């Protein structure tokens, strides 16, 4: 289980997270929703250990990671897979080499086994035979799928998805969501996903948490969020314009 307690983070005079607390049950898909620029990616970076909070703590299976550095933090990160917003594929490496990279460098898997596991990972995301292409030679949707294959090839216990479908057409959005759901059923990892895709994420999420003004204002199963009486949650999931903005 991932447990977040009282997480606070400011950049200069701007406070992005305000005593944020959340629990992510093991094996669940928890989706963080909220407006653009609301601190969702900043929150995710705290879970990954890329940012340190000003106050509060993050516990992964009871281990507080906010104070960890070096090897101790790397030991936690070895259990992670991360799908970045833009894919973050290495430009100079082919798709095959990108997916092979964590196996070769992180887990030191033998070369013949790497070939098999990469081929299998690319097949799982529907990209058989595309291994030789460079990231710059494939479409945005394909890049996202390669990024998912790279994140999952090491069979991590916890996978973080930072807006994995941003900028894709509705068909690809559904394709990626069903791919994540299918892979989750197979590997049973704990997933934390940041997304704007309403209402599509309600089909794949076990729990949805709404981040607003640096706090989680509502968390629960998709049905509960959809039936929420909270004005902010209702406004967000219905896509109603914010009349207070610009005044």
């Amino acid at each position, binding site marked *: 289980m991932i447990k977040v307690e009282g997480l606070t983070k400011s950049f200069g005079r701007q406070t992005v997270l305000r005593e944020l607390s959340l629990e992510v049950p093991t094996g669940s898909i928890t989706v963080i929703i909220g407006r653009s620029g609301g601190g969702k990616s900043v929150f995710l970076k705290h879970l*990954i*250990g*890329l940012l340190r909070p000003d106050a509060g703590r993050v516990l992964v299976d009871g281990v507080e990671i906010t104070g960890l550095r070096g090897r101790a933090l*790397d*030991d936690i*990160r*070895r259990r*992670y897979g*991360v799908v*970045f*917003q*833009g894919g*973050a*594929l*290495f*430009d100079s490496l082919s798709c095959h080499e990108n997916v092979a*990279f*964590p196996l070769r*460098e*992180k887990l030191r898997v033998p070369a013949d086994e790497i070939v098999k596991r990469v081929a299998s990972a690319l097949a799982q995301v529907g990209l058989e035979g595309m291994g030789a292409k460079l990231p710059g030679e494939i479409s945005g949707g394909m890049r996202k799928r390669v990024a998912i294959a790279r994140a999952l090839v090491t069979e991590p216990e916890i996978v973080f998805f930072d807006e994995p479908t941003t900028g894709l057409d509705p068909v690809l959005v559904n394709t990626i969501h069903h791919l994540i759901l299918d892979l989750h059923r197979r590997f049973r990892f704990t997933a934390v996903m940041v997304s704007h895709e309403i209402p599509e994420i309600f089909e794949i999420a076990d729990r949805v948490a709404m981040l607003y003004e640096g706090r989680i204002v509502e968390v629960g199963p998709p049905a509960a969020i959809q039936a929420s009486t909270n004005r902010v949650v209702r406004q967000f999931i219905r896509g109603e314009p914010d009349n207070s903005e610009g005044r």
Partner: protein
Amino acid sequence: MPDRPLSPALRPFDAVGGWTIALVDSLGRFGTFFAEALGAIATPPFKARAFVDRVNYIGYRSLLIILLTGAFTGMVLGLQIYLTLVRFGSEAFLGPAVALSIIRELGPVLAALMVTGRAGSALTAEIGIMRITEQIDALTVMALNPMRYLVAPSILAGLVTFPLMTAIFDVVGIFGGYLVGVKLLGLSPGTYFGEMQTFVDLNDIMTGFWKSLSFGVIVTWVCTYKGFNVGHGAEGVARATTQAVVLSSVLILVWDYFMGSILQ
């Protein structure tokens, strides 16, 4: 609690204090970055593939510009020094004058400036783009040290390629002086090379070697640091690239003076 506004009389002190803190902070981060890079160089595993790639990137791809600038620097020196020496009837010393100028001073400095312009800027831009596209974060969350993959191989490649590029620059420059002095202006080849052997000793060659070695570290350190600490978006990468080239060039010239003073 809101900050109290400063009185106008204290504002200059506030500005100087803020600037000093920013400068010390920046120097501290610059130094810490180098210490981390040295740590990554000194501890296994050594990334041989990344090192070879960086040697190709910094060295081999800078070869053409080194050959061109080396040849024309030697030719200009040959022409100008000959025209000066001929006034004193001392044109026989053209060979040593060209060789000493290039080996001790111009070779290491100009080769370093050329490699900075070609490969240093590209190094900053490449690492900067990796930073803004989260590729460096991707390495970090894979529990892999980006210093080991990106910075350590670049600094090691700088240590290998800068002396090599300087040596090539020196040889091509001396032959550029030979072309002008001997083939164009009629000096005897024996005089050009014979006097060179008399006046140029190992100490001169080592002076150029130590300079080039230190320039290799300075340029790769500055360029990788600027790439790692890039701002936001394309503008941030452009600014970091410019800063890397300007800072490297200034440091090359400043450090050259100190090295020249020490290695007289």
